[in-house]
Each structure stands twice: as C-alpha cells, then as structure tokens.
C-alpha cells in the first residue's frame, strides 16, 4: 500500500504544480544566463582581494569631488556613486587601485527584468507570488517523494547510486537524472520557498539597529588620516559588501561598512569603531538563499542551475509520458462478465501496464474461444461462484515486492477460501537483469501451492523482458493441458532497445531421426560470447 500512496502523491503534486513549474523552469533557465553574462563583462579586476580599504578610500576622495558610497558586487565589480570634479553625479564602475572610472553602470537588460517578473509572480503581483511560492513548496515535496520512490526501486538507500535497471528511455532517464539532480532541485525549491516566505513576512522579524548616536569614547581622541585607521588597514575589498561615506563633515556622521557577517560604524576622524552589529541569522539566510537560488556571483553554480532547470522540464515531460502510457495500457475496452458467472479467472499484478497488456491479449483469446472470463487485479481477489481455473500474471516491483495492485493478495488469500476447487497457473514477468528475477511471482506460486483448494496445472513460468516466445509457449502448454484451442494476438513488442546481432548460417546438417537439425552460425560482426549466453 505504501508505494502506491507515495507514487500517487508524487503524481498528484506534479499535476497540480506542473503548469507553474513549467513557467518557473523556463524562466529560470533564461535567468541562469544573467550571472554568466555579467561575469563576461570586463569590470572585474584581478587582485580585488589584495586591496585594503585604507588604500582605496583616500584614492577615491582625491579622484572625485564627493563619493557617496561604493559597493563590491557578487561578480567582484566595484560600483561607486560619485560626484565628479566637473560636478556630474554618476554611478560608475571603478578600478580598485586607481579609482578611475572604467565603465558606466548600465541598466539591467530588459529581457532579464521581464523574465524575473514572470518568474516571481507571473505578472500577477501578490497573487502570482503566492502561487509560485506554493509551486516551490510542491516541488520540494515532489523531490522528496521522488527520492523515496527511487530508494524503494533501487532496493534501499545504500543502493541508491548503483546500476539502474530500467529499460525504456523515459523511465530510465527519469530515474538517472532524478538521482543526479536531486540535490540541486531540492536546493532550488527550498530556497524558492524561503524567498517566498520572506515576501509574505512569514519569517521571524529580524530588524537590527545601529546606534547612530553612539558617543565617542575618551580613549580615541587622536585624529588619524584615513589610511592609518587600523580597521581599514585590516579589511580587504573582498570582505566589504558596501561602504558608505559619512553624510557630512560633522564628527557625528560616521562611515558605514556592510561586511559579510556584520555592519560597522566608524568615526570619520579618529577611526574608532562606534558600533558593531552582527547580522541576524534570518538576514544571512536570506542572502544565502538568494545566492543559491539565482547563482549570482558564481558561473559554475549558474551552469548547474541552468542544467537543473532543463532537467525539471524533462521530469515533467517524462513523468506525464509514463503516466499516460500506463493509463492507456490498463484502460479496459473489453467485453466483461460478472465475476460469479465465470469459469476462468485472470488476476494481474502490473506496475507499468506491460504485464496487463499480456493479460488482455490472453483474455481476448479466451473470449474468442467462447469462454466466460473475469479479468482484474490481484488486489481485487474475491469469491467466485463458478470459477474453476485461476491464471495469475504478475510482475515484481523493485527488489522483490508486489506491484501496487497486488499488495493485498496475500492477506485476502488467507482470509477466504474459494467456493470450488481451483486449478491454477502462475506466470511471472520480469527481467534477468534484476538479481531477484520474478521474486514476487515465485512467492505467489508457493503460496497457492500450500493452499489445499488449489492444484497446479503447470509449474511457474517466468517471462524475461516480455519475451513473446516464452509467453506463447506457456499459452500453448496451458491450453493443451485444459484441452482448449486458443488463438493469441499479442501487441507489438516494445523492446526496441534490444540490438539484434546478425549471423550467417555456415552449415546445416540433414534431418536427424527426431526431426531436429543443427545450425552452425557465425556472427557477421565479431564479438565475444560464451556458452549459456
């Protein structure tokens, strides 16, 4: 029961949020280019980390008439708001050593502005932000349920990164990309939720105050030139986020420095630290969330986010593809009989719908032979008034578990006895690539053997990789045992993954007395093989 709940949740969450996540991922993809394009601009000068504040401040003051503030951006550019000697107020990029202007600060490209608006709020202001925040939360849950499903499928947390057995392009890559991008996707979703929570003031209040009225102490009375301020000498530019010059020449107006983890007020004549306030955790968390969510300042992380956005789009597409495929296969467009009218009962355990396809073909063959047959899932086992023959088709989920529509069969079997004596045959569907090939089918077969009301028609047959030949052989054997003549039409083989090797017939012996003959084959392309392959 548990797997189907998680899978159902995973699908339900995805259905609700799909539309929003598609928009968010597409826009996120576009926005991931912004930090990359920023880093290509020529305003970052090497050696920013070696220039101390004490060096740059006097240079700035001599180069310009007035400096309001300067900022060190995430991409290590230095942006200064100045009034030049010609009296023009501008916001410019400057060189850390000479403080000379190296470029004008351009407005953010309109495409990024527009895309950010769409990404954050679908142009719907507060309502839009709520939906996007909700979609982020759902994405978190989808990722977590996905992880749970993956662990179950691989057979435990320790085997999470072991070989993936799935065949089928969509299924295989949904799993492969899922486990590679699990961490980035959860980071994107969690930081998205945090940033949304911020917008809606759901986070604890985190105001912090400087004491702008701090009185200088008696210790620091000596006036120092700026380049001798001890704090400024010890701070390098990469530790500074924003540096604001005192508003006026009054000694009560201080320098305001926004550093990585705290803010500091410095007396403009004595260099005394007037106030030092560390940032509250909530503010630091906000900053980290923004960096992690947008990739600003890091080209590598931006690239990761870019690929993760593409992967989310793929998950949505492949997830729905798999769902529709499963739904199509289990849709019943068959003639049905009431269960108590039928002599023949077919019970199916199928996770992806593949086993069900075989069951339907078999069902149709019996109907065509004029028999009354009831087809349903193993979970729907009940009492059947006229039933004499039971056929079970089942696959195995993950490491030996029942598929989701077969979980209850064990309990139900022990709870009620059949009305008549039943003759049964079990067919297991699986893949030899898995270590526990057809484990569930084996369990069912053993279970039925132990019940006195059930007698076997044939021993358990295992079908590897939906082999039509094996299945047809079983149908022939079974119908022979029961004296029936069945015409089976199977759906086209799904296994396009199997590459066929071409062989050339070198020799053919004459017919032996038991009507067999020997074929000698040589492969057209040489490859190694062993007996038993």
């Amino acid at each position: 029961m548990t797997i189907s709940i998680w899978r159902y949740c995973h699908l339900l969450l995805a259905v609700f949020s799909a539309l929003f996540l598609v928009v968010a991922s597409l826009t996120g993809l576009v926005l991931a280019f912004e930090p990359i394009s920023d880093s290509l601009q020529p305003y970052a000068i090497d050696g920013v980390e070696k220039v101390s504040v004490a060096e740059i401040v006097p240079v700035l003051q001599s180069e310009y008439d007035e400096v309001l503030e300067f900022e060190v951006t995430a991409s290590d550019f230095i942006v200064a708001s100045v009034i030049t000697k010609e009296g023009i107020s501008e916001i410019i990029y400057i060189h850390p050593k000479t403080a000379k202007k190296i470029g004008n600060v351009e407005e953010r490209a309109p495409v990024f502005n527009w895309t950010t608006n769409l990404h954050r709020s679908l142009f719907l202001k507060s309502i839009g932000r709520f939906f996007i925040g909700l979609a982020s939360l759902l994405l978190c849950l989808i990722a977590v349920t996905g992880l749970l499903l993956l662990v179950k499928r691989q057979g435990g947390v320790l085997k999470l990164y072991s070989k993936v057995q799935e065949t089928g392009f969509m299924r295989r890559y949904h799993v492969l990309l899922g486990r590679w991008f699990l961490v980035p996707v959860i980071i994107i979703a969690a930081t998205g939720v945090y940033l949304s929570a911020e917008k809606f003031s759901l986070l604890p209040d985190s105001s912090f105050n400087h004491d702008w009225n701090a009185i200088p102490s008696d210790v620091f009375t000596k006036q120092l030139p700026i380049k001798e301020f001890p704090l400024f000498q010890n701070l390098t530019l990469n530790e500074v986020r924003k540096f604001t010059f005192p508003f006026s020449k009054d000694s009560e107006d201080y320098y305001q420095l926004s550093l990585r983890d705290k803010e500091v007020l410095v007396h403009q004549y004595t260099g005394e630290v007037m106030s030092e306030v560390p940032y509250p955790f909530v503010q630091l968390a906000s900053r980290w969330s923004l960096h992690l969510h947008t990739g600003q300042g890091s080209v590598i992380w931006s690239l990761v986010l870019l690929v993760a956005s593409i992967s989310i789009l793929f998950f949505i597409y492949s997830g729905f593809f798999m769902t529709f495929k499963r739904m199509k296969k289990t849709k019943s467009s068959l003639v049905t009989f009431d269960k108590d009218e039928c002599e023949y009962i077919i019970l199916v355990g199928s996770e992806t719908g593949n086993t069900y396809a075989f069951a339907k073909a078999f069902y149709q063959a019996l109907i065509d032979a004029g028999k009354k047959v009831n087809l349903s899932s193993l979970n729907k086992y009940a009492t059947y008034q006229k039933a004499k023959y039971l056929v079970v088709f089942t696959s195995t989920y993950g490491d030996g578990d029942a598929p989701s529509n077969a979980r209850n069969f064990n309990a139900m079997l022990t709870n009620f006895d059949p009305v008549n004596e039943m003759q049964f045959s079990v067919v297991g569907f699986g893949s030899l690539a898995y270590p526990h090939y057809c484990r569930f089918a084996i369990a069912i077969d053993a279970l039925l053997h132990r019940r006195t009301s059930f007698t076997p028609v044939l021993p358990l047959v295992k079908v590897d990789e939906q082999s039509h030949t094996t299945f047809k052989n079983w149908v022939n054997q079974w119908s022979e045992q029961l004296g029936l003549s069945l015409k089976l039409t199977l759906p086209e083989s799904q296994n396009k993954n199997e590459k066929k090797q071409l062989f050339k017939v070198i020799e053919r012996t004459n017919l032996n007395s038991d009507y067999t003959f020997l074929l000698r084959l040589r492969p057209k392309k040489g490859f190694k093989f062993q007996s038993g392959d």
Partner: protein
Amino acid sequence: MLPIFKITPIIIVVSFILLAFAKPTETTTVKCMIQMTNYSGEGAYVVISLLSPNGEYQETLYVQGKDEEWYSDVTDWWKFYGKYRSDVDAISGATINGGERTVSIIKISNDKIDAGYSIRFETAVEDQEYYNDDVQFALTSESLKSKVEGKGFIRYVRMMPQ
C-alpha cells in the same frame, strides 16, 4: 517705412546682447539622505517631487524604485507623472528597505528656492500604507541644510547642499 528698416536690425542686435547677459538658470546640487523606520515588508517606493506654491506637482526630483509596475501605487504623484511619463532613468535608484538609509543627489533650480515652492517625499509599500506627504517642507535655503522628521515610513530626511 524706412525708419523701421533701420531700427529692426538694431533691435535684433540689442536683444541678442541682452540675452547673452541674461543669467542661465542655475541649479543647486543637494545631497539627500532618507532614513527609513524599521517596518517589515517589501522595499518602499519613495518619490521626491517639487510642488508649486499652490500645491501642484511641478517636477519629479528623484524616484527610489525601478519597477514601473508599482509606480501607480504612489497615487498622487502618479496622477502627475503618469500623463507624460518623462524619462526618470537618470534620477532613479533602488527601493529602500525597512531600517535602511539611502543617500542620493538631487538638483534643484535656484529660482525655485525661497519662492514658495515645497519639497514632498511620498512613500508606498506593497500591500501596506501609502503616505502622500511622509515628509513635506517649504523649499528655502534654510531647509536645504536641515533634518526633517517623517510621518510614515520615513524616520527622517537630511538635506545638504554641495
């Protein structure tokens, strides 16, 4: 007829000479600091405008907040700005969060000082209040050097001519 022909060029020359001596409108560069109260929520949009003696909007001096989508929340100013949408790129900056302070440079023409004009600071925060006169004071040479307290999101404003 003839006297007019002779006078016209003289008049033209004299007007040009007079014009040449006429003073061009000078502006004062003012450093303006806005300190916000510790409100929580989105960054505030703040618009600094010049009002005429009868309280009508004359000129937009500065706009804090770059997303035009929200300009209509600054209701009174929007009625003035929204009509012609003059280019405010050069005089715009970022929104101001609660507890923060911003310094910007504004230019005021000298003939507006001490002439009955006023300066208005209007503030609006998304999903919160709007103050059309958070700070408002008469534009005089004294007030350009002063500190004025605010009524809403602004704690105080300090002005300093350069």
